């Protein structure tokens, strides 16, 4: 499963590069608009080590950010699941924060928490949490009548149990969303690095952009893709494992 995933990523990547090269030769674009294959290859070997390390650096932040965001999303999703005033208030707050693009919030964030690692983490978590939240809200606000009935009528339906039942009944949806959201945590971390950090692959992309070096950007995309495929694959395997052990299938 994991090797397949990586193979699939490679296919996509190669297809993308080929499309760009076709465009380059088709439209006769010069090397500074789209770099040629030799340039790509040279850059690729050159940045192999540094970008590899950068991506791993980014990955650590992304993983942490994802954990935070999943916890946050579950928290907000659980708090906002009811159709009460407070529930909808929580939802409005959570939605609005999301609507503000990070770039607009960044200055305020810098004022509040300063710069560095925490900001990077926070931005990653903010970008990642919302999609998880949407799913959690959808799942948590729909009763599973045929299971909950007994607990409700016998006065046993604490919120923890309610949440547990709904999570369990939608386990495969939840694991899909959570493992998929790794992608977002990654993208979020990169954005954060882009605007606020001095480490990580996002920072390298910013420098490459600033130096107008498309081959470096393409190389960075390659590393991002590989590492993400692996991480995502591992998450999916974990998801399957959780399903297996919890559901005893």
């Amino acid at each position, binding site marked *: 499963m994991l090797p397949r995933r990586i193979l699939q990523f490679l296919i996509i990547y190669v297809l993308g590069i080929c499309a760009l090269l076709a465009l380059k030769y088709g439209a006769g674009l010069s090397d500074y608009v789209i770099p040629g294959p030799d340039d790509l290859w040279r850059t690729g070997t050159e940045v192999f080590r540094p970008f590899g390390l950068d991506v791993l650096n980014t990955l650590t932040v992304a993983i942490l950010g994802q954990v935070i965001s999943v916890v946050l999303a579950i928290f907000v999703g659980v708090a906002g699941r009811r159709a009460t005033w407070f529930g909808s208030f929580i939802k409005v707050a959570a939605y609005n924060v999301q609507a503000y693009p990070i770039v607009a919030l960044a200055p305020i964030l810098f004022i509040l928490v300063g710069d560095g690692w925490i900001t990077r983490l926070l931005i990653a978590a903010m970008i990642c949490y919302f999609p998880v939240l949407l799913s959690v809200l959808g799942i948590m606000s729909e009763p599973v009548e045929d299971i909950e*009935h007994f607990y409700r009528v*016998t006065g046993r339906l604490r919120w923890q149990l309610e949440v*547990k039942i709904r999570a369990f009944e939608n386990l495969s949806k939840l694991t899909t969303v959570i493992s998929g959201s790794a992608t977002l945590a990654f993208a979020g971390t990169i954005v954060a690095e882009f605007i606020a950090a001095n480490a990580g692959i996002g920072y390298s992309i910013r420098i490459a952009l600033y130096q107008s070096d498309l081959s470096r950007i393409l190389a960075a995309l390659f590393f991002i893709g590989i590492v993400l495929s692996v991480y995502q694959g591992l998450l999916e395997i974990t998801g399957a494992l959780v399903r297996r052990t919890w559901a005893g299938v």
Partner: protein
Amino acid sequence: MRLACRDIRYRYPGSENELFNGLGFVLEEPGFHAVFGPSGVGKTSLARLLTGGIDDFSGDVAVKGLPIRLYSHNLERLPGWSSVGKHLSRITPPGREAQRETLVEAFGLTGFMDSRFSRLSLGQRNRVNLLRYLIQHFQLLIMDESLANVDEQTREQILLTIKEMFPESCFLYISHNVVEVATFCRKILVLRSPEKSPQAVFVGGQDRRKDARLDERRLQQSMLEIVNAS
């Protein structure tokens, strides 16, 4: 105890015809009673109405001495994350553990306490579900086709056990089996279509208990009354 309905009128939102059209009855003795009637006549609806699941009806439901009324039906499920046995022990009120064990035995479920609910057969699910209601505190328990997917022998054993263990409680057993309700139930509330008046009539059953012999003739008589009433 007393359970009295007076002039109940109810129509499902969006449906054309009244389901209950002045339904009324009074039940004053505890015991194992039945609700009987053709499919679609309103048994489930009546049960939900008596236990708070439907509340936009007109008319009165007066209840005395039945503070806890539970409704259980045959499509309920247990959560899937641990075995049936674990779930049952978690929801056993303190002091009822022995009762639970007796019921597990009588329900023929002894071998299935380590299984997950989703791996049980339909009849096994029915039984597990009913069992967990029985060990709760209640004065009235409505069993909506709770044993519909259980074989007759097991069902008989279950009914006799329930009657023996909970002589003071009130049960409303919804079933499509005439012989069964006539045999085991004390009073049978026969529901009829809304055009008929009264919409519900009581018929007496044989209320058979453990170790009691059944009078075949009187049973035939009860069955006939039930069929005639419906």
